[in-house]
């Protein structure tokens, strides 16, 4: 399996899609990864809070661009197989 720029792009697109479909209330809160459950103005943010911050910011920022990227990729794959 070749590790090219195109496969890297596809893999990252799939990963970002996966992060974006995680639902806040239905899933993350149940697991204990909800946004409200990790607060604190502690001196050093823990790894878990950073990861959750990252997930939340990816979901906020990448929602709209991901729509376009997905459409582009689908068209591309339809045409070129």
């Amino acid at each position, binding site marked *: 399996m070749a590790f090219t720029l195109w496969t890297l792009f596809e893999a990252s697109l799939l990963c970002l899609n996966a992060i974006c479909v995680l639902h806040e209330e239905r899933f993350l809160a149940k697991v204990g990864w909800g946004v409200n459950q990790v607060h604190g103005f502690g001196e*050093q943010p823990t790894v878990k809070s950073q990861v959750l911050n990252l997930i939340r910011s990816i979901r906020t920022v990448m929602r709209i661009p991901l729509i376009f990227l997905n459409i582009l990729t689908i068209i591309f794959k339809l045409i070129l197989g």
Partner: protein
Amino acid sequence: MNFNASDARQPPRKMKHGPQHQPTPLPQQMPQPYYGAGYGNPNASFNPNNYMGYPQVPQDGGVYGAQPNLPYQPMPQPQGFPSMPGIPDQVTAAAFQYGFNALGQSSQAVGREFEKYVPVSRLKYYFAVDTGYVVKKLRLLTFPFWHSDWSIKYESESQPVQPRYEINAPDLYIPLMAYVTYVVAAGLVLGTQDRFTPEMLGIQASSSLAFILFELAVIFVAMYITSIKSNLKLLDMLSYCGYQFIGAISALMAGLLFKSIGYYVVLTYFSFALGFFLMRSLKWQLQSDSAANQQDPYAASTSGTKRRFNLLILMMVLQTFTMWRLSAHLIAP
């Protein structure tokens, strides 16, 4: 030619071409361009007299008039412009001047926008190397165990001294050359096994680029997650990740000469050498968090040390893995 409206105030200049014409009002209405930190301005002397384009004193008394409100060198005389039929020379010259102005301003605006995403002006720093630096750095990369002084001299707050004066500073010349050499060496090795096609060169190039991008993404995400703040920017990380191509090239060459066993020996040696190099170079460049920074930038808190250590281990493992993946499929079975 001086297009300022203050022409009337000044004594007429010696011009080789026709009478003095009406100056166009256009150049004064253009806003003063803002210069980013990286751009040099050839007319950088901020003379308040010249701010609105009304020079009190002629800059030079020659044929090439000074144009203080334009952001670049004065344009040559109109006799260099092509003469169009039916249009007087001065109008042509004015039109050309306006075109050049607009082009200059728009290209500057584009440059500024581009600068926000790819720090082009910082690139010059990374290519300020000379032969002595390259030789010493290569020696350092292949045998870092005897080097004792790993500190970097800084010339301003965040900018280290240029690489040609400081051997421990990162540069981008070696990684770039190593990348190209790696692609060529891959072609060579494939050729000796009769597996070479021209498409393979492109595939190798894009594949190794993808590896580098992936490594950079993993490192930056890891730095964010463990909240390790450092002065290292994208280009610094790119240079530290690019040094592994040297290991890949040497392993390839050893594999060419000594078959499989030579390849694996050189690969493990370079993994250790590069790991040691990274450990020593990056140990003091990764701070742990802002609280520690405020109290004492040189002390490391205990949890911060562990995280830094883990991050360095992660980098070493990543680079070893990448070096192996870059070259393993090229070796003859």
